[in-house]
């Protein structure tokens, strides 16, 4: 089974994140990481590959030079190889630009050997759009199994369980398919020393838009369907109160809420 797992390099969510004058995420802090939720996707890929035997897991990222760290991490966890789509024309892409590039890269990999499964995280913790998995499934015309807490493949059929706010669902689809996993799906492994050493020898293929036959005008800032016109840090909250309970804090809280007409 050949599995492509989409991984994104994002600013560490523990860091001070900001938007630059162009409205884009500032990515020069050097404190970027593999999007945490994509670790769940890599873990799911490795588990499914091991269960299927005779498998290959390819990590795929679209992003600037630093994004190499994200694929490196996936390789350290155990992915067999990686593709990094690196092209200045991609900068400033919105989700649909990124989707078009990822789709082209998946087709490229498929041409080299049939891709059975495309795995993604449920959301990238920078933009948190959660739009990409469904868009990518539509673009590739694959069955879409998203927000998955449990996934198994048997006899070329993928079977999943997903937990939504209002319901729990079970879905099936024939391979090839696209699956996005939540953080409920598994606990991602930490790369061990052996994994870190092995990753050094693993191939990372760097591709540009020309390699993928993607017209640069359709992606990047030029192809983006949205444009940030204003961005500012939210002003700090004013009139903040911090008290230590002297036995009346509950009463004080009640009065605070009543005074502010919050109850």
């Amino acid at each position, binding site marked *: 089974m050949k599995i492509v797992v989409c991984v994104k390099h994002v600013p560490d*969510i523990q860091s001070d*994140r900001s*938007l630059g004058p162009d*409205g884009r995420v500032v990515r020069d802090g050097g404190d970027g990481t593999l999007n945490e*939720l994509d670790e769940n996707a890599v873990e799911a890929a490795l588990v499914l590959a091991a269960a299927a035997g005779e498998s290959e897991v390819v990590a795929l990222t679209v992003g600037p030079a630093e994004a190499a760290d994200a694929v490196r991490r996936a390789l350290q966890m155990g992915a067999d190889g990686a593709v990094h789509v690196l092209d200045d024309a991609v900068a400033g892409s919105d*989700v649909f630009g990124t989707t078009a590039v990822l789709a082209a890269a998946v087709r490229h990999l498929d041409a080299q050997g049939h891709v059975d499964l495309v795995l993604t995280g449920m*959301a990238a*913790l920078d933009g*948190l*759009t*959660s*739009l*990409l*998995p*469904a868009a990518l*499934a*539509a673009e590739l*015309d*694959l*069955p*879409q199994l*998203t927000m998955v807490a449990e996934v198994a493949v048997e006899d070329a059929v993928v079977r999943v369980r997903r937990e939504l*706010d*209002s*319901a*729990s669902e079970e*879905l*099936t*689809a024939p391979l090839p*398919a696209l699956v996005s996993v*939540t*953080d409920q799906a598994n606990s991602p492994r930490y790369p061990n020393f052996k994994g870190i050493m092995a990753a050094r020898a693993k191939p990372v293929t760097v591709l540009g838009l020309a390699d993928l036959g993607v017209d640069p005008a359709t992606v990047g800032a030029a192809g983006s*369907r*949205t*444009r*940030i*016109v*204003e*961005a500012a*840090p*939210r002003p700090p*909250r004013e*009139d*903040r*109160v*911090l*008290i*230590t*309970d002297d036995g009346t*804090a*509950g*009463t*004080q*809280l*009640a*009065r605070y*809420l*009543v005074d502010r007409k*919050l*109850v």
Partner: protein
Amino acid sequence: MTEPVTDPATDVPTGPVVVLLDHHTVDGAPRLRPPVLELLTLARGLAASTGSPVHAVAVEPGLAQAAAEELGRYGVARVHDVVLPGADPHLTPVVAEALTAVVRTDDASAVLLASTFENKEVAARLAVLTGAGVVSDATGVTQEDGVVVVSKTVFAGTWTTRCAITTPLAVVLVKANAVPAETVADPTTPQVEPHEVTVSPSALRATLVRRTERAASGRPELAEAQTVVAGGRGTDGDFSPVEELADVLGGAVGATRVATDEGWIGHESQIGQTGVTISPQLYIGAGISGAVHHRGGMQASGTIVAVNTDPESPIFEIADFGIVGDLFTVLPQAAEEIRRLRG
């Protein structure tokens, strides 16, 4: 950074603003969810600036008829009652194709949907099918020089942005509680139009084998509630003080991932980046440290109250009213005092 919304569209789009109706089932009958009324209010504002009407789309059988009168109070001109032969309206690709068909018939200028995980999938496919631009988790939407401009917060509510959608069709996913729902002075009588849509094989590649609806909690839905009381590891599994205060306030109960992972409360109660994103008027967090993953789902709340025994907890950095104290004494006392003040 501020820059004017440049290159105003030469032809200001005047097509209708379309709202996807979300519903829940009350006493066996489909009913509109409260955020839909907020969407209709926003849609009216958007439509009014170009003199276009507001249309609604129902994909659940029976919803269009059941909701028509209420939709009239919110100024809806037409309801597309979508019929999907042989397709399950619970599959989001099916809903996306239904919406695409309506948008094309209507020549719509904008589509508004409630910002839920399911609707994000609907919006993503709709955008791939129509070339529309999408903004999710919006807190406001206006029309400026013929361009749809959306407000949203990013990075766990620490930044506010305004984003222009530059495509002829704008798709906006709006967070609950973005605006108060307002009825119109002169209710309309919406035309209910049956609209049969045959979906493509593409939308039916996955099969829904089983769907189990969660039993209603009797409390407001977490994502929609005006007031949320949430508990974390500090409850040590005893959510009764959290529930008591929520009930006194008529609010929803939420939790951190630690609490849901421990099985103290259902996963659907998890607030945060991998759970529900909330923006109620009032959030009260008890026994919650305020990890960045949790903050990402609640930092946009109106007033934030935190009760925690540890004065160093990061949640105090964002609290409007912080109490260093034990939730097991503070919460019951607050509930008691609110009952007393109400008489």
